[in-house]
Structures are given as structure tokens and as C-alpha cells.
């Protein structure tokens, strides 16, 4: 029989899977763009893989790491490191406390307290908070060094300014998300805004605020440890000093102290947060 007659299949034709790249699909274009971005990054950055991959580099790397050991644990140096660690801890704690106060002060105009609240300060305050938190702590520290001079005060202020932007926004969002019942009841009685805030908003939102502040302290201890690199005191200043002089044993001790400090603050913050929410 010739195949002039087109045959019909006895079963329905299979549905083919969708093509891998469909010009109409947005997600496909997005994936292509992402791949291009990644490839372009690697290509344009003149990364020196050779410095890492060769055997010679391996040997020098090994030698470099070997210089770290043994870390310098002489009592005189360790006491200096402990003092610097205390300075770093104080910087982070004081900076966080100041930021919490400033953040609360800024969060009040930045949030809409009730449906009748005109909240005309909301946009400008939110813009200010965004500006404060966009600039990283290190950049703030570098800027403040010009006014405040070298030393930990610039670091404390830098942490306070950056963190108040972060906390201000978190606080404002928390205050906007609480149930309105208690506040509405007081407003129906004609009670003024400040008293409604003190009797209804703040009692509800205070545990969350303290939780955020403690969580932020964990981040700030890491930031405080490195702010010294630009001259803001603490462990960072010691680190950059000793590294600049290639005193690797001392550097190893300082790095160990940094790790220990960060771990301690993490544990402390976690414990306090759990205790607050019992």
C-alpha cells in the first residue's frame, strides 16, 4: 500500500515539553541577563587567578599562613589586646544604645499611628532614615574622623548613625503593625497623641524593639571590630597596625580575640532575647 494516504495515529499526539528558551517568556530573558551579568563580571574584573593557582603561589601562601603560628600570647601583649577588645565592645554597645534612642525618636514621625494620623512627616523622615542606613558604617567613620579626630568616638558615632537608620525603619514598621484596639479606645476618649503612644503603642511594641536592638548588636560588634582599620580605635586599629608591620604572630592573636568577642556577643544577645520573650 502506498503511503499516499496520510495515516492518523491511533492515540493522541504527545504534548511536547516547552522549549528551553521561549522568546515570550520573561523568566527566560531574566535568566539570560543574569548569566550575562555573571560572565561580564568575571571577564571585566581582571582577576588574577594565576596568583592563586600556581605551585609557587601555593608555596608562598603556605609560608604566609605559617607565619601566623605560633600566635603571640605574651602577657603584656595579651593585656593590650584585652583592652582593645574592651574598647571595641564598649564602642558597639554604646553605639547601639544611642542608635536605639535615636531610632525610636525618628520612628515616631516615620510611622502612621492611626487612620486619622496625617503623618505629613512620614516621607521626609523615611527618606532621612534611608540615607542614614544606606551609607555603611565604615564610610560614616571615615567621614566623622574629619570632625572627631582619630579614636573610638568616631567609631561610636558612625555606628550610632548607621544603626539608627536601620533601627528607625524597623521600629516604624513594628509600630505600624500592632493591633489598633488599645490605641483606638484611648483616642475615642479624646486622649492626645503622646499619651496614646505611651499607654497603648509603646507597651505593645517594646519587646519587639528590644529584640531588634539586641539582634543589631550582633552585627555591630563585627562592624566595630573592623572600624579601627580607618583609625577608629579598638581591635581594628591594632590589627591594621600589626599587619602593616607584618607582625603576623600578633595579628593571629588579634584575630583570635575578634572571633572570641563576636562569639560571646552572639551568645549574650541570643540569651537576652530569649529571656525577654519568656
Amino acid at each position, binding site marked *: 500500500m502506498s503511503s499516499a494516504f496520510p495515516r492518523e495515529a491511533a492515540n493522541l499526539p504527545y504534548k511536547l515539553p516547552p522549549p528551553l528558551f521561549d522568546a515570550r517568556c520573561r523568566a527566560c530573558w531574566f535568566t539570560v541577563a543574569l548569566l550575562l551579568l555573571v560572565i561580564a563580571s568575571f571577564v571585566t574584573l581582571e582577576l*588574577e587567578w594565576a596568583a592563586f593557582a600556581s605551585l609557587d603561589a601555593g608555596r608562598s*601562601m603556605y609560608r604566609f599562613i605559617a607565619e601566623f603560628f605560633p600566635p603571640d600570647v605574651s602577657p603584656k601583649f595579651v593585656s593590650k589586646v584585652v583592652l582593645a577588645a574592651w574598647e571595641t565592645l564598649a564602642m558597639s554597645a554604646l553605639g547601639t544604645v544611642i542608635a536605639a534612642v535615636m531610632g525610636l525618636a525618628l520612628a515616631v514621625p516615620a510611622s502612621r499611628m492611626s487612620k486619622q494620623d496625617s503623618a505629613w512627616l512620614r516621607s521626609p523622615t523615611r527618606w532621612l532614615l534611608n540615607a542614614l542606613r544606606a551609607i555603611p558604617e565604615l564610610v560614616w567613620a571615615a567621614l566623622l574622623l574629619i570632625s572627631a579626630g582619630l579614636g573610638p568616638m568616631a567609631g561610636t558615632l558612625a555606628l550610632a548613625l548607621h544603626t539608627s537608620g536601620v533601627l528607625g525603619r524597623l521600629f516604624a514598621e513594628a509600630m505600624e503593625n500592632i493591633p489598633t484596639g488599645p490605641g483606638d479606645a484611648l483616642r475615642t476618649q479624646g486622649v492626645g497623641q503622646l499619651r496614646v503612644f505611651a499607654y497603648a503603642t509603646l507597651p505593645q511594641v517594646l519587646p519587639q524593639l528590644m529584640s531588634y536592638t539586641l539582634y543589631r548588636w550582633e552585627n555591630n560588634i563585627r562592624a566595630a571590630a573592623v572600624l579601627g582599620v580607618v583609625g577608629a*580605635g579598638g581591635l581594628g586599629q591594632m590589627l591594621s597596625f600589626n599587619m602593616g608591620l607584618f607582625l603576623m604572630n600578633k595579628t593571629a592573636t588579634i584575630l583570635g580575640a575578634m572571633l572570641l568577642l563576636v562569639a560571646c556577643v552572639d551568645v549574650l544577645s541570643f540569651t537576652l532575647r530569649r529571656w525577654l520573650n519568656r
Partner: protein
Amino acid sequence: MSAIQFPQVPLASGGKLRDPDFSSRVFWLSLALVMLWPLGVVTEFRPWVLWEPDNRKVTLDFLTSFWPLVHDAEFLRMVVRETWRTVAMATAGVTLALVLAVPMSLMAARVLSLSALSGRMNRWPACVRWCVRYTLIVLRSIPELVWALVFVRVVGLGPTAGVLAIALTYGGMLGKVYAEIFESGESHATHTLMRNGSGRLQAFVYAMLPSHAAELASYTVYRWECAIRSSVVLGFVGAGGLGQQLDNSMKMFNGGEVATLLLVFMALVAIADTVSAWLRRALS
């Protein structure tokens, strides 16, 4: 109709009602305030120093030098180039971080434990998982600036140090959060596949990945945005990009350049924020 008389609870302090929490509140508050004092001393916290005439003059001079902004063509070309380098450094760093984080998070995920399918996990796998988790925590705890300082000594100035620093720190962060994401959520599908004999990687790709993909992608995009800020910070120790330009301009007290760079940086952060929010919304 008079109110029903109920026996009143006898007052504990013989007739006078006092607030029982008051003294403990005052104590803790005073303690907290007293602890602030040594903090202020050791950080040399004297904000009034900013108001001294010399400091005020320097600050004012610096602030007034912000205007006019430097906007000649060559400078702007350089700014655009450095902005791209910053973004590229962040992207390359996060890509390498993913290369590090994905295998480690898979190794640390308890969900994929074969020995735990039938009761308790064996000691050796538990130990390996604990070690991997601990490594991720250590990687996460070291600030990327410290890595950058070390790498600058090894590979020299330039973006390589920055990319490696971001890769290590963010590898730790991403790895730990990925492991936590894997642990949360339903493990029923994964365990069923493993019980029926499929390999662990197969179980991951067929069961875990589809259910967690959106959350993983969302967090990765968010971390990419953080990485852009980090790469600006790393520029201060020699990794190039906007940060290094900012450092140079500040050291030369060139307020106009500093202002332009800051504005460009804030615009970059705002754009990255918007892109990241859009992506995260599209993914969920």
C-alpha cells in the same frame, strides 16, 4: 440596687497599697544607666568636642566644599567605571560564595542523612555535619574586611582580594541560611525518596529544591544587595571600586568628589534595593 458585696482580699502590707514592681524596676534601670558610664569613658565619648571651634571650622569647611559637586566628564567616566567594578566585584563574589555554600549546606543538612532515616544518626556523620556547620559559623563570623586585609597582602591590591573576601564571608552566611532553610519545612517527600533507594543528591534535586527554590533565590538576591555595600567598604582597604575612590577623595579633602561619589553610591544602593525587591516579589 446595691452592688453585691464580695469579700475583699485582705491587703498584704496592712492597709496601704504599694506598687510591688517599682523598686526592682528602679534598680535595673539605675544599673543599666550606671553601666553606660564606663562605656562612655573607654570610648572617649565626648560629643561636645565636635563643637569646639577648631573642629567646627574643619567640619564646616569640609561640608561647604561639597558644593559644587565635581561633574566634569572625565571624573564621571571614572565614576561609572568604578561603579561597574563594584557591582562586578559583588556579583563575582556572590557567585563564588554560592560555589562554596551549596555543597557545604548540603553536607550540613540533617534532612539528607541516610543514617537518620532509621532512627538516630550515626556518630561519624553527625560529627561531620557538626564540623561543617561550625566551619560555616566561623566563616560567617570573620568580617570580610579582615579577609580582604589578609588577601591584599597575598595577591596584592585589586579586586581579586575583594572578590575572595566576599566569597568566603558570604559563603559562610549563605551556607548557614541555606542549611536552616533545608531544615525547616516538610521533609516527608525527601525522606520517602531516600527510603525508596534514591541517592541523596537526587532526593535533593527532586524533592527539596522545588519546594525551597523561591526562598533560596529570594535570600540570595538579598545577599547580593548586601554584597554591593560590602564591596564599597572593601574598597577602603585597596580592593578597588567606588570605595577606593571615596577613600582617595576623602584623604585629599576634595569635598566635591566625595559628595558626587556618595550620591552615586546612594543611587546605586537605591537601584539595587528596588531590583532586589522586585525580584523577590516575582519569586514568591
